[in-house]
């Protein structure tokens, strides 16, 4: 589990961060620093493992999250609020958020 996480971090060009993170005694509950703009707001609705009708994001690959954001933004994927929220983020911003979430615990 930990090694997969590390590989994802390295892929994101965050090797140093991964090393720091691994060294932290409470690595399990900590997300890597620094979070890209907007990333920490997601957990206001999305519990790591989901909650009732709201899906969790933990363990999802970055590409899946970034694709979903794009589909919400261009209206391909129906939504109640994610369509309105996704329009506030560019492709690059959404990808950075997706990579940060995918690298998290």
């Amino acid at each position, binding site marked *: 589990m930990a090694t997969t996480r590390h590989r994802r971090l390295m892929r994101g060009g965050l090797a140093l961060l991964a090393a720091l993170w691994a060294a932290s005694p409470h690595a399990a509950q900590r997300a890597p620093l620094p979070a890209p703009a907007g990333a920490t707001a997601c957990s206001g609705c999305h519990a790591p493992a989901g909650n009732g009708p709201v899906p969790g994001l933990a363990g999802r690959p970055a590409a899946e999250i970034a694709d979903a954001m794009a589909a919400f933004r261009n209206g391909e994927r129906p939504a109640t609020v994610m369509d309105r*929220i996704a*329009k506030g*983020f560019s492709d690059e911003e959404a990808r950075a958020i997706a990579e940060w979430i995918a690298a998290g615990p």
Partner: protein
Amino acid sequence: MAGLATGAAALAAPRVLAQAPPHVAVVGGGFAGASAARALKRQGADIRVTLVEPKARYTACPFSNAVLAGLRDLDAQYFGYDGMKRDGIDVVAASATAIDAEARRLRLDDGSGLAFDRLILAPGIDLMLDAIPGYGASGAEVMPHAWQAGEQTALLRRQLEAMDDGGLVVIAAPANPFRCPPGPYERASLVAHYLKAHKPRSKLLILDAKDSFSKQRLFEEAWEQLYPGLIEWVSLSFGGRVTEVDAATKTLTTEFGSHQAAVANVIPPQRAGAIAAAAGVADRTGWCPIDSVTFESRLRPGIHVIGDAAIAGAMPKSAFSANAQAKACAAAVATLLAGGQPAAPKLINTCYSLAAPDYGISIAGVYEPREGLLAEVAGAGGVSPLDASADVRASEAAYAEAWFDTITGEVFG
């Protein structure tokens, strides 16, 4: 008071010698402060965090309108601080009475002091009970505001239950800015839901100090569908502003006349929690101007202000905003303590309201710093569609409940 002892020791021994981690004091354990304390502890940097909050348990306002309507127990609104303690946060059960930004010290109501490297101030709101002639603290015991959840919520609920069928319920709503812009209208909806089922001859009157309100067309559509003829909204221009009340007779006076209520809910004007003015971080508006990247006070460096107390530009005063601001502020504070330059954040708000238990509507927004203020990102955000199906409304009601469960779990769980 272990936190105080260590705080005093940290002041006596310079940090460089002691190799102690930096210390952040958080004042106020609501959605804003509790989120910030947790986020600081969880983001990895070695920071000592003290949370100063006088109450042993927090009473959440979101979903307290459902308590008023008898749809939910007040017990479901209570949250404790054990989760904070488990995270290694020092929880001090006291009120901050003074903050010296220059000396980086705060004073508590037990007379002791606490030193900090940076302070996050999240005291929520103060209700200006004396702003409406005739109201005041004693008026609030008769015509409850229920705008800080707890005993006031229970009191208003008891009054609604005791009211005879055919009674007039009056909600007096304040001018902007105030805590939870859609809140008075969600309250009107859920009280109407209760009246329709239990006291169908009753009426609900909203006396408003403004000419428009959040999610207005959605609420009006819902009222038309769900409670036809039950709710009447009187805008500012049509004499909605309450200029005086008489608690003894539950009479509310406006520029155009007066209304005698069976149950009156008076929501007075608000300002940042009193400690903000005492600390010198509130301006003449009563709220706290902040840097839109770091949430640091524009008036007192070293103090960051988040949540309802802050002037957060276009962001509404909501628990969702408070939580999002707290996490962005915590990241900025950690970066500043490490000698770095905080990056511009992006923030999200999503506020659900219930027009009925199975009828949810929402407003969402994405925000970023622009010309020194948190401004809405153009093209994003907005409200639920008008004319949506019952399925859409039901799913938003389910999302609302999931949101409350998730956020209270993240903050207090």
